[in-house]
């Protein structure tokens, strides 16, 4: 299931790369087995679900899915920041491609749910996420892009890294909160000058339901191919 080989814990080099002895044994400290601590945290998570569910199943659901997202992000080392940054900085596009896959699969699920609601005459869920496009979108995206790269993590990535024990992201999280509060304070100004003049564009309104998902998947596919070609191009350039 893994694509990275690891040497057996506590074992010697065992691999094919010959190394001088000096760099191996001196480093090996006795490793603590953290599995018991992991199980304790798991117990905490489960207790949380049970306790919350008693009062509000919704809160229990949010707690559960939060833990699932955190677990999956950490286990797969999924990183939106790296997806956007690596094509430029290191030439790597594997995360960009993975993000594209996520966009595609989620889009399919979302359009099904939304269309189903529409077809049954029910209110469409999640439409509050269809927001006006304006200069605020441009400025916000750019600011967020800069911030996530220099701080070493996006929103989900920062939370994940706090859980992994990174002091830097704990600091970043605090200032993320400060910045968010500042942004909320200025939100009225941005609304007045830019957001109120923008339009929220729901793709099915332009292309129809089927058209919208087809166009979106086609764009994602093109980006995927571009990412693939980019990585090959960068790789070839390195070996000149």
């Amino acid at each position: 299931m893994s694509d990275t080989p690891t040497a057996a814990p506590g074992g010697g080099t065992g691999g094919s790369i010959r190394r001088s002895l000096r760099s191996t044994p001196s480093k090996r400290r006795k490793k603590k087995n953290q599995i018991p601590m992991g199980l304790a945290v798991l117990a905490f998570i489960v207790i949380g679900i049970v306790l919350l569910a008693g009062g509000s199943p919704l809160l229990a659901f949010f707690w559960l899915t939060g833990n699932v997202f955190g677990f999956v992000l950490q286990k797969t080392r999924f990183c939106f920041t790296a997806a956007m940054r690596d094509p430029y900085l290191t030439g790597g596009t594997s995360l960009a491609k993975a993000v594209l896959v996520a966009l595609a699969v989620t889009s399919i699920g979302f359009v099904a749910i939304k269309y189903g609601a529409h077809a049954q005459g029910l209110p469409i869920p999640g439409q509050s996420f269809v927001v006006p496009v304006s200069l605020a979108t441009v400025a916000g995206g750019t600011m967020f892009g800069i911030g996530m790269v220099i701080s070493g993590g996006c929103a989900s990535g920062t939370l994940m890294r706090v859980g992994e024990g990174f002091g830097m992201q704990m600091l970043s999280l605090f200032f993320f909160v400060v910045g968010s509060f500042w942004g909320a304070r200025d939100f009225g100004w941005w609304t007045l000058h830019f957001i109120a003049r923008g339009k929220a564009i729901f793709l099915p309104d332009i292309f129809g339901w089927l058209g919208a998902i087809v166009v979106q998947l086609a764009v994602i596919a093109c980006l995927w191919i571009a990412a693939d070609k980019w990585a090959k191009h960068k790789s070839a350039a390195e070996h000149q």
Partner: protein
Amino acid sequence: MSNLFDRVKKHPYYVAYLKDAWPYITGAVLLSVFQIVTLAVTGNPWGVSAVFANWGAWLFKLAGGVVDKWYYFAGEGTPGSIALLERGVLQDPGTWRNVGIIVGALFATLIASGFKFKKIKSWRQVAAAVLGGLLMGYGARIGFGCNIGAFYSGIASLSLSGWVFGAFLFVGAVIGSKLLVKYFM
């Protein structure tokens, strides 16, 4: 007892499924599954950063401040709401989800026996964390969300805003990379 855990640590199933990292595509699929589940159950996609503005408001309240005149928290179609703030942090679903992400990641790291507290190494890292955090927080509010809410959920919700935000995320990432190499390395 410690013998049992040490034996588990060497077991091939443990190593393959709990210790070693999983492929990125697996992540993409699993995140998608739970995004879809979230939309179906809660009526909204996944979002992360809106919660942080609420945390800021609660901290501000502790310091004696009030936000009831702020447009952002007016609550009729605005991203924030006074009503939610008044119910308190323990009743905020988004807070539970965000803290869940932290704990879930902690669990994943511990169960793989890979947890280590990484101290901040230099003033450069402090500057990067402070500046980066502020930019992300502010940018996420005016952009109606972060890499998850505005970009991932936005695009998946078939909103053009998601694509525009994403394009400029990329622009920002390039600028950030240049800054990173020049000042923060």
